[in-house]
């Protein structure tokens, strides 16, 4: 099953990129995600591994994922090593000065689970889709608030120095 959501954020692409690739910030904006922890020494980049779980229905599903594409500051993709079969992608594109189009894609399933697997994917889709949409809304809010705080701090600094 493949679900996707997208949103425009009023911030430069590099700023958004910094947010989505920082493992310490994932739980701040990812909706439904109950765990996102670094496994190993590598914090980010190709080969970085994370243990992630998302609450869907009666279970927290997920597992160990590994980043397989890290094209700064545009694309980051990961795939599952253990647990639920999944492939996720963040896709950032500039749509104007200081504006970024963000797309969040996630494919998931359990290979070999047959008809029940297909049914469960369909049943879970609205929940997963909702998590993706809320994640993007929270990301937008967090990044834009952070931008505003920084801008305000700069103005205060400029006034103080003047």
């Amino acid at each position, binding site marked *: 099953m493949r679900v996707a959501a997208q949103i425009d954020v009023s911030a430069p692409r590099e700023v958004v990129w910094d947010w989505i690739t920082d493992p310490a910030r994932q739980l701040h904006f990812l909706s439904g995600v109950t765990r996102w922890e670094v496994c190993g020494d590598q914090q980010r980049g190709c080969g970085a591994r994370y243990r992630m779980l998302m609450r869907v229905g009666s279970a927290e599903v997920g597992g160990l994922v590994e980043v397989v594409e890290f094209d700064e500051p545009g694309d980051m993709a990961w795939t599952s090593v253990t647990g639920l079969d999944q492939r996720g992608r963040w896709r950032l594109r500039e749509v104007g000065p200081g504006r970024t189009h963000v797309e969040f894609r996630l494919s998931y399933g359990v290979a070999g689970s047959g*008809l029940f697997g297909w049914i469960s994917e369909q*049943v879970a889709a609205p929940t997963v889709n909702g998590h993706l949409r809320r994640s993007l809304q929270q990301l937008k809010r967090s990044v834009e608030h952070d931008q505003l705080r920084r801008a305000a701090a700069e103005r205060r600094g400029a006034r103080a120095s003047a």
Partner: protein
Amino acid sequence: MPWALRAARAGPHRLGSMSETTAAKGSLNGHSTNGRMHDEEPAAPRASGASLPGRLARAVAGAVQSRIPVADLDERDPDYIRESLPRLWLLASLYFRGEVRGLGNIPEYGPVLLVGNHSGGNVTPDTHVFTLAFSAYFGVERRFHQLAHNLVLSMPGLGMLRKYGTVAASHSNAHKALESGAALLVYPGGDYEVHRPVWESGHVDFGGRKGFIRLALDHDVPIVPVVAIGGQETSLFLSRGEHLAKLLQLDKLFRLKVLPISLAIPWGLNVGDMMGHWPLPAKITIEVLPPINLREEFGPEPDHQEVYDHLMRLMQETLDALAAERRLPVLG
């Protein structure tokens, strides 16, 4: 809907199977019903009379016990579990609206003894929901075994239970599982607790069985209490039928202490619950409590009764809190 039918057919047996531990009564109790430990599969019961019914009962008991599989922890099949998780997820999420809290309290690595209260007759949805939650949370790669009543494991067509890591309840199997580094789920209350009447559904009742404490101490593993509510609302349980079981000598023949009586779908009056029943869609809520390291909390040689009382108090308080959250029976 074929999936529903299959789930219904598989559910009672599988869940019932995991239901129990205590068959093990003898085993995890620290004493057996006939005065000896069930270190290995029990020998055929002694003659209970030379009458025709007595001989027939012995023959059935012998046939049942011959079907009990020898424990082989390697029969657990992670791929099978993984592929069946969507099925379990559908049943747990849509039918029982399961909710499991506090899985993060279970130590990430190493052997651990999960001790739960048990409900639902021979169809135990709490086990079903917990197995799904545990396997999804930690991954099917983590070894996870459950102890089950001999009778359940000997039922025809339930070979798949062993793929889930279910083994017959005995000291020997429990030790093997913990030695292998697995998480082991036991329900000390077993058949005694799971068939309690509906007006006792808000009580944790292990029937005084403390064998699991010795097991945890022998292996120096933490005990993690698992408290569940909702299972006893899946049918109208009326009586354990202990006197009836004793009268029919079921305790000697099958290690069954109870012959439960309930009102259940589709049987109406359901005696024994041997064929399972169609459970009502009660909301199942499970809370996993922080681990208890017995020697750290109770000293190098803990008093079993003190540990038992502490655990009972802890689990009962949690069950009371879960019960207070519920507004309506079944609906939750």
